């Protein structure tokens, strides 16, 4: 993974010094609340319902054991002993004290981490495939390109004060685990790791969830990768100049793309690009090669064939069998596997992990995965390079730390935002809904029988829980001061060649007490109608929304 140079190190340290001074001036009354707001957001600090929240950047979701141990320490020393994995691969702390944040940022800088631009109307963390560099279906590792974008966008003087937040996602695999179709800029890179400088990139713009969900438009197909920065600069300049600033609900780039039409938007960007193309920010081959060298495969060793041992362990340990089935995926290297450690247990808010669990994962990474950890946008940890011979041992330890829920991809592997319990933007609480569903459908055999279902919960239209692209989506709404929940079906984040799709609302929203019953009805309709082992999504696509609508609202009629 990427290693900081002295340049990177001095940059983050200087940033901490600047923020420390800003905090002091704010506490001395020299900066107003509004002035400090803009500065603290760009250093990751939100003020929420109950307490400040600090969002630490985990660039493209990759971090080292040492860094993860430091996050555990921060959770212990400055917070309430836990952290939260976000849907953009970052880690959040829910209870830091405002005056402690400069010290927390220094603790981060000491391990080559930061919270730069994790909030505010600026370019945010570039996210990617949580299995980057490992997945069997990967064509090219997207992370060298993510690192380049990270550097280019860090404190970019022209693009720090955009109309709204800006999110970029990158993929290099057949299956898009980065959901590029619903990002402000989505990038699909083609090529091979041996010559990153020859890669091509398809660029999508104007995708997003939230109030007005929309899929990104393809605005450049097959751009030679050396133009990555100049073309992105052209997009950013057009957005910075022409994005709406009169209405914050109409200020994302997706609104601009729609207003200009995709063709119109592309024309403006291409025109701007004529002035930038082949200019000083054109990236030479050796830059790609140099960055690529940070992401070369780890020191794999030849692995014995352990299929017989694993088969045995599967028989003697049914829970291990389930875990292997759902949480362990194919690796590009023979004898290795990609492991998802689930944070989703009954009664635990999805994505929340204690400092003990964080330290444990950091240790396991050291022992089993070359010291590297990923955070997925499904709010789980990933150990990307585990030898199959060590899977059982890892699983036993994960079990002991409540990180072995064998539910990856299943109903209880939900994406859920913090919701009304924590977030002042929320219309309704999301966590109690998640917990109720987890408890109601706890039975593993039932979940296994259901198969892969993406259930995503958001507490408001901002869609931080990605409800639009859930197979089952739940959206908290405020109906005359009461918390109600709107259910949608059939959304998905995109798979293989199939672009993402937004869910269809099934009918009027329901009270919280009814949500589990509604989910129950939905699942029973599916089980009643499905053919053979047809997945929920396939069944829905085949039968449509009508049978679900009828069943849910029949008794109300």
């Amino acid at each position, binding site marked *: 993974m990427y290693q900081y140079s002295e340049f990177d190190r001095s940059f983050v340290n*200087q940033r901490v*010094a600047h923020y420390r001074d800003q905090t002091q001036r704010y506490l001395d009354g*020299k900066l107003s609340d509004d002035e400090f707001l803009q500065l603290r957001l760009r250093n990751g600090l939100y003020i929420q319902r109950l307490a400040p929240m600090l969002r630490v950047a985990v660039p493209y979701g990759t971090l080292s054991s040492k860094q993860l141990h430091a996050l555990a320490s921060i959770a212990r020393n400055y917070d309430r002993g836990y952290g939260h994995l976000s849907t953009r691969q970052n880690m959040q702390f829910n209870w830091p004290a405002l005056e402690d944040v400069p010290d927390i940022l220094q603790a981060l800088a000491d391990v080559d981490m930061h919270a730069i631009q994790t909030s505010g109307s600026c370019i945010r963390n570039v996210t990617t495939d949580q299995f980057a560099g490992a997945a069997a279906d990967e064509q090219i590792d997207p992370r060298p390109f993510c690192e380049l974008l990270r550097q*280019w966008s860090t404190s970019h*003087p*022209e693009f720090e*004060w955009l109309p709204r937040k800006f999110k970029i996602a990158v993929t290099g695999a057949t299956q898009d685990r980065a959901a590029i179709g619903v990002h402000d800029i989505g990038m699909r890179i083609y090529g091979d790791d041996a010559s990153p400088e020859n890669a091509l990139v398809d660029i999508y713009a104007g995708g997003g969830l939230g109030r007005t969900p929309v899929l990104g438009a393809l605005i450049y197909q097959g751009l030679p990768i050396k133009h990555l920065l100049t073309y992105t600069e052209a997009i950013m300049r057009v957005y910075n*100049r022409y994005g709406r600033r009169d209405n914050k609900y109409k200020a994302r780039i997706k609104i601009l793309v729609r207003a200009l039409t995709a063709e119109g938007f592309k024309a403006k960007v291409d025109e701007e690009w004529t002035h930038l193309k082949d200019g000083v920010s054109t990236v030479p081959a050796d830059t790609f090669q140099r960055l690529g060298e940070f992401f070369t495969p780890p020191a794999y060793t030849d692995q014995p064939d352990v299929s017989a041992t694993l088969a045995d362990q599967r028989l003697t340990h049914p829970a291990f069998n389930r875990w292997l089935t759902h949480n362990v995926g194919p690796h590009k290297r023979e004898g290795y596997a990609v492991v998802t450690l689930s944070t989703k247990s009954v009664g635990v808010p999805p994505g929340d992990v204690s400092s003990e669990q964080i330290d444990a994962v950091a240790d396991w990474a050291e022992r089993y995965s070359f010291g590297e950890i990923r955070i997925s946008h499904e709010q789980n940890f990933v150990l990307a390079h585990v030898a199959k011979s060590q899977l059982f041992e890892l699983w036993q330890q994960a079990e002991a730390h409540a990180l072995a829920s064998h539910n990856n991809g299943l109903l209880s592997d939900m994406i859920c935002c913090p919701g009304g319990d924590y977030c002042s933007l929320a219309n309704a609480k999301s966590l109690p809904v998640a917990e109720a569903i987890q408890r109601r459908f706890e039975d593993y055999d039932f979940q296994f029988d259901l198969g892969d279902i993406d259930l995503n919960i958001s507490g408001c239209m901002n869609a931080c829980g990605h409800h639009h692209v859930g197979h089952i989506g739940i959206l908290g709404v405020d109906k005359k001061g009461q918390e109600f929940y709107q259910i949608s079906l059939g959304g998905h984040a995109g798979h293989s060649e199939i672009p993402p799709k937004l869910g269809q609302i099934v009918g009027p929203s329901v009270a919280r007490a009814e949500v589990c019953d509604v989910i129950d009805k939905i699942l029973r309709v599916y089980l009643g109608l499905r053919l053979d082992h047809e997945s929920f999504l396939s069944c829905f696509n085949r039968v449509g929304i009508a049978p679900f609508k009828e069943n849910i609202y029949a008794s109300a009629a």
Partner: protein
Amino acid sequence: MPQLLRNSDQGWQIVDEPDAQWQSLSDWQAAGGSRGRVTVNVDSEPDQSWLSADAIAVDFPALTDGRGLSLAVLLRTRYGYTGDLVARGGVHEDVVHFLARCGFNVIELPQGRDLQTALRWVSPHTDYYQASVSNPTPHFLN
């Protein structure tokens, strides 16, 4: 007396300069549009005809309105403007470094702001990652 930071060969300094007479763009154009000092809004489309002005001031309605930054970049790079490029309006001590790197060479802080603090933070970093007006070589080329 305006509160000014000016960039020169010796770097950024606090300077004493008399209050300037500024004309709005429309007034300036009506008066013949040459020499003199003109103020423009952040949503203006830059124009060739502005190049003869001795000074162009960009009025930031708020520090959060980043359009003035793109305007400065375009004026310096695309249009090659060499006169004084002045940032004024909703600017404060902690955004001067963005303004500086986008090509503003004069920053006028509103009354009540702290020029010493602004000067202190006109360059919070010794170097930056990306190419900019003030830093034409991107770090990845070093």
